[in-house]
């Protein structure tokens, strides 16, 4: 059609561009010196799904805004290491009792001081069931959470939180958790000013925060844009290097992509499937392509009769080995992902690509077929049964890779396999929550905070909230507990990696690949850095 000639011409340029960009996306941010720090930059986002309250924001559209207009005790730097924001110090002897000291003289954007009380009140507000905050489960490790979160509970204070003085408070957890400090940079743990509680719904529409930016007057234009301006009361490490950030709200990243191409938008943090093959040539030296803390997996629920017991374990392994992950990455994602070697993410501290037993994640058609036949000898695969992979397809880009995966499984194992498409996300969640899946399902995890445990505990612990496949193994649970009560994060990570060896045998999910962020930016801004979680460091962007 019309583009055949153009695309060939671009193809020649591609080789050049690759050479040029070898250092383009490295992200040590040296290129920002001398940029214009007064201009407002624009970036893509989606309409926040809920009011802008810390414990009620659980999706990216709202999260991006919250992380800029609020700040907590700590924040994460570009590599995911924690840096102090409002915390002077966070101390513990036993990983269960923490004493938190605040920096003095910090204020909200309206000038009111930030005290220990602001934190304790905000956390209590977020945890209490009567306030219906979506992130309330984030406070579950704090002592007393079970009481405030019980149905019809009128309690709204957790006994684990105590204010010592204006700058100090203590946190007592229900059990030791060595990675608790890592969590404190997450949205749910931000403080709230006193004024928030009078009418939380109204506050959510026009919040007063304490981050590097604040919401412009009337800045949230629903379904159109969210406009942020610099908050000059902010003194933390994420000082704004531009005059403000305007989030343009898009319904599709395709539209945003064309906008960046024509310099109508400054930063796009997700190249759409239609651009994956072209973004390196379209943007020459204005893109990044780097891993972030997220992965894609395929859940095989434990309640499926064919996947129980010894035969079930063999089948899981056979399916895992029947998938040629690299081929799917090359052909469907144009090489823009990395094959998974375990259950977490390579950007995390403690990541180990060579865990014993990780061979099961390597493609081996012959071994897969042999393993499948061995399982059949124990208990035969029902004749004519189709191995289905269920996925909602209202989001972009799921259909293609699952179809490819199903084709590979069908070819390599000699069974029927296909995508079972579900029209809406709400129906998909319903199937998962009510344990009504009849086959495998698409899954994946994006880190809330940079920790191995965040990829393991909430997903595979017995009865854990996101344990979609209903996996349960006492040995694994014991390892998790041991890791959490370790004295240091490093010691904990070693134990968490031990626990992954159990997962590699049981394969409650089949790890597929690690996610990578493909981001592009316009001619109007200097090099953009993307963080450990794939989110651009908006505060660090300078205009040309």
């Amino acid at each position, binding site marked *: *059609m*019309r583009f055949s000639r*153009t695309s060939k011409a671009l193809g020649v340029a591609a080789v050049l561009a690759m050479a040029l960009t070898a250092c383009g996306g490295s992200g040590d941010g040296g290129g920002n010196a001398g940029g214009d720090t007064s201009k407002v930059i624009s970036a893509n986002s989606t*309409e*926040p*799904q*809920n*009011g802008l309250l810390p414990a009620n924001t*659980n*999706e990216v559209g709202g999260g991006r805004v919250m992380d800029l207009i609020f700040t907590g005790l700590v924040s994460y730097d570009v590599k995911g290491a924690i840096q102090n924001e409002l915390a002077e110090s966070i101390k513990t002897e036993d990983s269960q009792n923490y004493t938190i000291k605040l920096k003095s003289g910090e204020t909200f954007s309206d000038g009111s001081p930030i005290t220990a009380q602001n934190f304790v009140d905000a956390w209590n507000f977020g945890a209490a*069931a*009567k306030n*219906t*905050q*979506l992130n*309330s*489960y984030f406070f579950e490790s704090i002592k007393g959470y079970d009481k405030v*979160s*019980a*149905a*019809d*509970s009128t309690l709204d204070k957790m006994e684990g939180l105590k204010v010592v003085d204006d700058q100090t408070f203590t946190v007592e957890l229900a059990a030791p958790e060595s990675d608790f400090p890592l969590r404190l940079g997450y949205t749910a743990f931000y403080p709230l000013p006193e004024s928030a509680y009078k009418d939380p*719904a109204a506050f*959510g*529409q026009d919040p007063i925060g304490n981050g590097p930016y604040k919401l412009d007057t009337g800045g949230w*234009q*629903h*379904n*159109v*844009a969210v406009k942020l301006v610099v908050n000059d009361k902010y003194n933390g490490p994420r000082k704004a290097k531009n005059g403000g950030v305007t989030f343009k*709200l*898009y*319904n*599709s990243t*395709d*539209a*945003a992509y*064309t*906008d960046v*191409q*024509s310099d*109508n938008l400054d930063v796009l943090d997700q190249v759409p499937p*239609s651009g994956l093959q072209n973004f390196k040539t379209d943007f020459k030296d204005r893109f990044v392509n780097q891993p972030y803390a997220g992965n894609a997996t395929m859940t095989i629920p434990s309640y499926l009769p064919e996947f129980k017991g010894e035969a079930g374990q063999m089948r899981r392994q056979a399916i895992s080995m029947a998938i040629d992950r690299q081929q799917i990455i090359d052909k469907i994602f144009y090489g823009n992902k990395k094959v998974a070697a375990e259950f977490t993410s390579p950007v995390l501290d403690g990541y180990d690509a060579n865990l014993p037993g990780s061979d099961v994640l390597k493609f081996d058609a012959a071994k897969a077929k042999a393993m499948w036949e061995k399982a059949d000898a124990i208990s035969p695969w029902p004749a004519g049964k189709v191995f289905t992979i269920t996925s909602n397809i*209202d989001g972009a880009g799921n259909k293609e890779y699952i179809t490819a995966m199903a084709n590979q499984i069908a070819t390599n194992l000699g069974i029927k396999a296909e995508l079972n498409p579900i*029209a*809406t*996300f*709400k*129906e*998909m*969640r*319903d199937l*998962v*929550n009510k344990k009504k899946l009849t086959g495998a399902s698409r899954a994946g995890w994006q880190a809330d905070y940079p920790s191995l445990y965040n990829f393991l505990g*909430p997903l595979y612990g017995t009865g*854990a*909230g*996101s344990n979609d496949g209903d996996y349960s193994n006492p040995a694994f649970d014991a390892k998790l507990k041991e890791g959490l009560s370790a004295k240091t994060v490093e010691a904990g990570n070693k134990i968490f990696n031990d626990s992954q060896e159990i997962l590699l045998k049981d394969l409650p999910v089949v790890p597929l690949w690690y996610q990578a962020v493909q981001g592009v930016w316009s001619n109007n801004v200097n090099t953009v850095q993307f963080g450990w979680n794939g989110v651009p460091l908006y505060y660090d962007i300078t205009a040309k």
Partner: protein
Amino acid sequence: MFTLRRFLQLIPVFFGATLLVYFLVFATPGDPIAALSGGKPMAPAVEAALRAQYNLDQPFWIQYGLYLKNLVTLNLGQTFSGQEVAAVIGRAYPVTARLAIMALAFEAIFGVFFGVIAGLRKGKLFDSTVLVASLIVIAVPTFVLGFVLQLVVGVQLGWAKPTVSGAAPWNELILPALVLGLVSLAYVIRLTRASISENMNADYVRTATAKGLSRRRVVVVHILRNSLIPVVTFLGADLGALMGGAIVTEGIFNVPGVGNLLYKAILNGETPTVVAVVGILVIVFVIANLVVDLLYAWLDPRIRYV
């Protein structure tokens, strides 16, 4: 009288449509509250409280009854994000109305113009060219055609911004309106062409020609006026389709209109939004059809309503 009666008919139609659409959303599978949690865990107590807040724990008739009760006080309900549905729709409808009117004008003007020429020169080169162009428009779905046009006009040629900005001014809506109206354009061209070629041999045309009227006058005053009934019927029905069915076009050009709002609300099971959007659409339909019926009488004096 005729007009007044038509407005009275709006009442049962409105309630019928809202009831039906409320039921349809109610019947869609899945749990909106589960989707709200984004696949992450949610405390059971929070879940129950949210369910109660949106009346989702009630049986269908009570839910609908509560909705009607609010409706009487002009309260259209709230979205899951806590905004007033009335405000959300109030922002989106003007944008979509602009887009739909532009698309309608585009298809009416160009459709009739090309259709007349094609009808007068049936079987000639122009006629065949228009036919082939219509085929492309029919066979290539909007999500492809819009995407390609956006890329060529918006990015490669740079003639227009590839997307529409928040205020959605008229000039930025030209390209989206064009894309939106393309498929209907094919209908209008072929309807006009058929009607014109049918009427060319009518007795009154022979009479008019025999009277010595100029060809232009014969075509415009006599043939065209008598050929427009099917076209007007189509356009009248299309206005509503353009307003409610612009999901794909609005998505491509990021137009903050009703189509996307409706689509997202359907996917999320946000009943108040879906019902309000459809309720207004039905009113638009009934009024558009009233206008069409009045136009019939104007176009063809033999048609009378009592």
